[in-house]
């Protein structure tokens, strides 16, 4: 029995490396990725891995062989040595040599990966609770990227799609064969922006701007994740990057600029209550539900209810202030910096009409112009 078990253990450990080896490039191993850096890192990873395997086979080999050979049940009699100066010096030197030998390629790849020179395109990536914001520095184009997997899929009410939790409403678009530099920061807590296929993982720290870069040679959709615990929806803010030909990229930016212009026009338009309500509801469902919930009841005491709240019922000025500037020391962020006047006005209007609020409160309508006025007042 004992023998059998020992053999079993031996077999288990000696086959592991092969299992892993045959699984290279698959769901079991680090992705090779598409960029030069990700490929060097993959090579480095396999190199260290094999070094560990070789050391492991030698050390465990000697150990299991000793366990086998020097069993007392086989009549083994213990020797009486308890040190060997040269052997000890020998293995210390050998271990040091292996480490130095590994440090050389590691340093080279590190220098290759670490490079904060300007990019041909520079993108400011900002982590928010719980979505990413992308701003193309050269073109004044910016947008949020939200998880697009439905709550029903998460709650197991409908079958999950192929890209469950790996899909967003608006992916980041970058051109191929271009040096793209990411400037990465956080808006509230620390997040971390990771795209495995580019081997780019960089923390998004409030108050700091970190840099990372890539140069993608192949078009395609690359999916990643937030890798620093950032609160409740940490698992629900994926990164999706679409790498396209330069022409397509230019067209994308042009289209985005037209949209931005149209958005600015909207601010001066006269809005009806219904239009505001409709826009406000969809904004609420993407940006507010996480905390305040679809029914407006929040998750007290951390996330207060909006239904029946004094401010939402009867103090529209205060509500504008809260949405624009956030509440210091709480999870309520300043939305004014990142969203249009139209969106802010719409969502305020929506919350003042929705649920029982329209019936119990003043039901005031807030228009984009009110928001512009608020901004101007602050500027003064």
């Amino acid at each position, binding site marked *: 029995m004992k023998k059998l078990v020992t053999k079993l253990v031996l077999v288990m450990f000696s086959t592991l490396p092969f299992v892993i080896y045959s699984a290279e490039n698959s*769901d079991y191993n680090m992705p090779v990725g598409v960029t030069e850096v990700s490929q060097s890192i993959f090579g480095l990873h396999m190199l260290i891995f094999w070094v560990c395997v070789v050391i492991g086979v030698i050390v465990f080999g*000697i150990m299991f062989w000793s366990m086998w050979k020097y069993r*007392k049940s086989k009549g083994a009699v213990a020797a009486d040595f308890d040190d060997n100066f040269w052997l000890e010096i020998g293995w210390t030197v050998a271990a040091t040599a292996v480490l130095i030998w590994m440090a050389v390629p590691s340093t080279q790849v590190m220098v290759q990966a670490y490079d904060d020179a300007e990019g041909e395109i520079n993108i400011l990536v900002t982590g928010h*609770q719980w979505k990413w914001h992308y701003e193309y520095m050269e073109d004044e184009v910016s947008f949020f990227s939200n998880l697009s997997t439905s709550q029903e899929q998460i709650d197991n009410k409908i079958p999950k799609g192929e890209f469950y939790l790996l899909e967003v409403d608006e992916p980041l678009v970058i051109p191929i064969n271009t040096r793209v530099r990411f400037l990465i920061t956080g808006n509230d807590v620390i997040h*971390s922006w990771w795209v495995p296929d580019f081997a780019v993982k960089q923390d998004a720290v409030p108050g700091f701007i970190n840099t990372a870069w890539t140069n993608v040679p192949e078009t395609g959709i690359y999916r990643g994740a937030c890798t620093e615990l950032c609160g409740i929806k940490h698992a629900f803010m994926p990164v999706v990057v679409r790498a396209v030909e330069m022409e397509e990229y230019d067209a994308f930016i042009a289209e985005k600029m037209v949209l931005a212009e149209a958005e600015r026009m909207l601010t001066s338009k006269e809005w009806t209550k219904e239009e505001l309500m409709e826009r406000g509801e969809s904004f609420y469902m993407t940006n507010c539900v996480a905390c305040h919930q679809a029914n407006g009841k929040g998750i007290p005491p951390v996330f207060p209810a909006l239904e029946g709240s004094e401010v939402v019922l009867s103090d529209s000025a205060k509500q504008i202030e809260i949405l624009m500037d956030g509440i210091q020391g709480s999870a309520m962020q300043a939305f004014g910096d990142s969203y249009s006047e139209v969106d802010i006005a719409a969502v305020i209007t929506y919350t003042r009409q929705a649920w029982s609020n329209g019936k119990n409160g003043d039901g005031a309508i807030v228009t984009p112009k009110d928001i512009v006025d608020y901004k101007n007042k602050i500027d003064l």
Partner: protein
Amino acid sequence: MSTVVETHDHDGHHGPAKGLTRWLFTTNHKDIGTLYLWFSCLMLFIGGGMAMVIRAELFQPGLQIVQPEFFNQMTTNHGLIMVFGVIMPAFVGLANWMIPMQIGAPDMALPRLNNLSFWLLPMAFGILLSTLFMPEGGPNFGWTFYAPLSTTYAPSTVNFFIFSVHVMGVSSILGSINIITTIFNMRAPGMALMKMPLFVWSWLITAYLLIAVMPVLAGVVTMMLMDINFGTSFFNAAGGGDPVLFQHVFWFFGHPEVYIMILPAFGIVSHIIETFSRKPIFGYSSMVYAMASIAILSFVVWAHHMFTVGMPLAGELFFMYSTMLIAIPTGVKVFNWVATMFRGSLTFETPMLFSIGFVTLFTIGGFSGLMLAIVPADFQYHDTYFVVAHFHYVLVPGALFGIMAGVYYWLPKWTGNMYDETLGKLHFWLTFISVNVTFFPMHFVGLAGMPRRYPDYALQFADFNAMISVGAFMFGITQLLFLFIVIKTIRSGKQAKPEVWEGAGDLGLEWTLSSPPPYHSFTVQPQVK
């Protein structure tokens, strides 16, 4: 320095008091050791229960059992409890039992302090666990509690968490002072430092590490307290503070802390391997030097936990090299254990099985540690399940196996009864298999890209996660067997001889005492040759 030790009993018989007061007011090193060990055992099942909740939720993609908010509370409290409530108290418990017996002393040097440092612990964990029942819920920001998630964005129960960490810190520091004082002042005549048992050495070094870094932990939580309640901005970027500072201070505590959780296990395993190889430990002095250099190096590697936080190139390289350096003394220890078994006369009782399991699986954790030390590769590994695999390999089949090995090894000495060897072996094999089924696939999901601290995940990780959960449930249930074996041994079992293990009589002073040993271990100090 020497201490006068009473060589006779005043009142003839002098045993433990009766009833509850025996435990509340005890100043006896064995009673306090027992309290520590049972406390740790209780926490193991509470923290383990939390792990079961985590694994049940992760069994399948989608949210089934708990919501993300509660999931985060579970991961956070699981980590805090396992680190501060299981591994550390268990080692202190073993230290309390064994250090006086191994150095030929009657008791610990500061018995009342000893009582205090234990009773602070139930208080600290009572406070921590009570937060789970408060309306805002317990800490939910990870056991590493990075600011500002743990300050500006934390539930208000974070204040209880901070207080509880302070109390744990006081307990650890008092315990360490006691251990250092005992070791320096109460050794039997003739026991020079370089003749001390390795477990005593490992604890001497660990106690210094604790005294050095626990105040740093206290400092960092105090800074949090100020930020949250008194308007300072240590970690608040909006006020000119620096969230990264938090991580530097935390890991300056945190890395030495991970060695605090493994050094005593090194000591235990060294004793067991020499006992069951029937051959003295190979390279005693290099074992001591290796532990000392690990301890010293552990102060200059902290930022390897922060490779993606945005450090200058020189910083990244420095911390990579220093971390790789730590692998050398760690490797030396493994080589020494193997060399001890080489040409020995081996038997495989349960403590030995756990120790061999320790050497193999801890080494696998060391390998993944080495991989994580390589900065560019760490960009891909960091904050994925690969890291989770790494630290569970060093902590479960590492630290926890060390503790279990120690319990099996010394339990006959403590209770006077042999444990049931068949059940012990069954416990080992079930544990060994389930540990690997649980933690080995974590390497794969991590490499394939699953981030840690996720309550839900993409579909390609589903198969491995189901497997991991099954392993985890198996592991959890198996530990009930451990509890059963320990209780059974306390109540009955074959009478154990004083030396318990064949030939152990020459290996340490504890084996010269009767089994169970007298209430005051050595009332007459033995002479060490």
